[in-house]
């Protein structure tokens, strides 16, 4: 299988500020992010041949019209992509395949979500069927936390260190939702959401949009970022069980979707030892426990040792393997459909040495990890400079 290694390039990136953006709607956000990406790539809207837009909730938008209408690019082939919280990075996967196949030369992958407009606290719930009733995102991930506490002796304080680290990084990022450092004590004293997860163990509910211009390397060489465009070394999507709580034998000490997507991505990129070869990563820290479990699932650390590694500073921006230098979902925010493309925005700019916030030193390969649902969908992308 040829895959997409070195066959797809990112020619431009854009991202709105994330946050509770009451005064703007999804049209404002999408237009801002896409125009920023187009400017970054040095192209105009008319240069876009096709687009994929990641949106999770129908109240944000349905159909390709979510992109076409605000951009007034009538007649373009555009598809809405929905794959839980990994919708944004799956939009990138679809866009990549189209340019790698040679069907189009220049396309856009983007994502947007307008959570504040729903007017509910926490993600909207359906919860109708008695068997499924009331399964919230924090509750699902708290089930994993309880099990890790039981098996590995992790504590609430271990989780708190993840939040503190990500807030520390996010403070430096002008586009992050929160710009405030927090302490372990703040995390421990926060109100409970789904025990053992408190408010500061949960990522922000945010509005936002992000976009990337996707093309082939030979075309990127002729564009504005001809000297510092980045290429995809791998992209993999794995979809696992929708119902981990019913799955016999599911151990809750990590997520099979991440393990599978990471294994595929490492194989495509030719990575043998991710801890050494990946320079830094933006990983899906929807909850603090998720970041710790991701570290094991992505092969950055022996899984039970993840909490200790965070305490030891391994994942700080100056550490061995910086994780979420942007602040992550925890501090940067998590407008569902936008997050995957926001990660690609961050990884691209880090690799180009023009990070908005904390800059990782001399990165070679950056990984973006986007997890969705009750840990059922995972997309992993590895970006690097062309060889």
């Amino acid at each position: 299988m040829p895959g997409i290694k070195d066959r797809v390039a990112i020619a431009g990136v854009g991202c709105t500020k994330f946050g509770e953006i009451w005064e703007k709607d999804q049209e404002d956000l999408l237009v801002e992010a896409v125009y920023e990406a187009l400017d970054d790539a040095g192209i105009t809207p008319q240069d876009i041949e096709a687009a994929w837009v990641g949106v999770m909730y129908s109240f944000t938008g349905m159909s390709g019209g979510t992109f076409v209408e605000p951009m007034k690019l009538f007649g373009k082939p555009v598809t809405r992509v929905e794959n839980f919280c990994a919708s944004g990075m799956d939009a990138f996967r679809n866009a990549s395949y189209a340019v790698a196949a040679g069907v189009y030369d220049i396309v856009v992958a983007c994502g947007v979500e307008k959570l504040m407009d729903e007017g509910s606290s926490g993600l909207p719930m359906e919860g109708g069927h008695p068997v499924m009733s009331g399964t919230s995102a924090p509750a699902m991930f708290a089930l994993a936390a309880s099990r890790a506490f039981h098996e590995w002796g992790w504590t609430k304080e271990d989780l708190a260190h993840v939040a503190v680290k990500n807030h520390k990084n996010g403070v430096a990022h002008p586009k992050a939702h929160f710009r405030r450092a927090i302490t372990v004590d703040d995390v421990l004293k926060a109100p409970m959401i789904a025990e053992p997860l408190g408010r500061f163990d949960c990522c922000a509910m945010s509005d936002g949009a992000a976009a990337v211009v996707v093309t082939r390397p030979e075309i990127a060489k002729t564009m504005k970022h001809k000297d510092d465009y980045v290429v995809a070394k791998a992209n993999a999507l794995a979809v696992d069980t929708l119902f981990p709580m019913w799955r016999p034998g599911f151990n809750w000490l990590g997520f099979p979707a991440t393990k599978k997507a990471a294994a595929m991505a490492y194989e495509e990129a030719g990575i043998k030892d991710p801890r050494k070869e990946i320079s830094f990563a933006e990983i899906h820290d929807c909850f603090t426990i998720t970041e710790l479990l991701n570290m094991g699932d992505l092969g950055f650390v022996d899984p039970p040792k993840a909490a200790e590694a965070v305490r030891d500073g391994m994942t700080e921006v100056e550490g061995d393997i910086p994780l979420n230098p942007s602040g992550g979902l925890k501090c940067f925010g998590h407008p569902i459909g936008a997050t995957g493309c926001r990660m690609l925005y961050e990884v691209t700019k880090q690799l180009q040495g023009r990070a908005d916030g904390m800059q990782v030193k001399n990165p070679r390969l950056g990984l973006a990890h986007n997890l969705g649902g009750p840990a059922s969908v995972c997309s992993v992308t590895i970006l690097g400079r062309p060889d």
Partner: protein
Amino acid sequence: MVAIASYGAYIPTFRLSRQEMSQAWGIPGVPGERSVANGDEDSITMAVAAGFECLAGIDPASIDGVYFASTTPPYTEKQCASVVAGALDLRKDIFTADFTDSIRSATVAIRAAYDAIESGSAKSVLVVAADNRPAEPETMWEQLLGDGAAAFLLSKEGPATVRGFQSVTSDVIGPWRRSVDHYVRAFEPKLETQYGYMASMVAAAKALAEKESLGPKDISKGVFSAGDPRAHAVLGRQLGLEMPQLQDTGFLLLGNTGTPQVLMMLAAALDAAKAGDKILVANYGDGADALLVEVNDAFPAVPGKRPLQTYLMTKRMLPNYNAYASFRKLMDRDRFVPKSSPVTYWRDSKMELALYGARCRKCGTVQYPLPRVCVECGTKDELDEIKLPRKGTVFTFTLDHLVGGEYLSTPVPRIVIELEGGGRIFMQMTDCDPKEVSIGMPVEFTLRRLHEGAEFHNYYWKCQPVRGG
């Protein structure tokens, strides 16, 4: 011959001190405490719980009919017995009926079951009775009533025989509820006690004793329903019985449980009975029913089966009246009602109510809900439906402060359960102190009213700490 083949009772976990109720309103209090159904319990769920106790060790396929007796049927139009039959996983070709509108309906249902068996139209009939009667706030009724359920299996054979029915009908108004009334209404109590309760009970019990040639000394126990302990004592005297011969009404620990009261009392009497005992049962409500229960043999011990005493002892005290008010939804609140669908509820009823999962013929994995393709080995359509056990242990959990729950029910414990014998299921925990939840903790399942989506009662299972475990 018609016999009691088995019986069981159920008392909700929660109790409230009557002192708390009197203090809440600044009205006089009576001593003791009352049982309080949790906010997710109703007459159907309590009847199901009693039904499971009754049917412990008995093949549900052997039951030919279910009679549900209650003055608080959760549906006014739609049968409740059919819901009970579904949850107890009884055969489809059985006769089901609701007996309602009078607290006497428990013994009316017993008599109907007796007649069905006597006539040969059924071999065994399960009678379930439950009530959680609505008491008007700021009245003594709140303190006097209690919630509970009982179930009796009548059959051709059994350790205790039933016979000699004697009934009286009486049109004394009290207590009553019109279809527009929210709470139990009552007549002038003195008049009702004298011309309603006493007149009917004495007439029915005396006629029965005469028919059976029983003197007061021949009666081992008198099981007489009563809302008022004083009237109960007076009745005993009028029938010539000494205090030790009177089965306690449960007034001090439970309150007047209404329809199931007489059967809960009979269950307690049978728990303590010995071979040769004769139990005179009389039940009041728009007249009275009397019957004689004769114990021929000890009821067989069934592993895991709990006597009424276990339910009486395994209790949690509610901290205050607010908890009761919240359970009873006495205050108008804008409540989130989840979506539901009568279509999926109907289609999935075997999985939801009767609690069926599946076992793969190829790899043996137990799984829930029933899939088309095995979750473990991927084999298609080679899964056998299996009845899941109603117990397991906590594999992992969270205490959810975000979604669902009300006063005392927040946080909602959400539990991944390792089923006894394999497989997993995901449920809320109820009737517990969330602080006590831990991994490895044994739990049992209890049918509860989950929500009112699509404006019908959505029943599903929750887990709870094992009572008396």
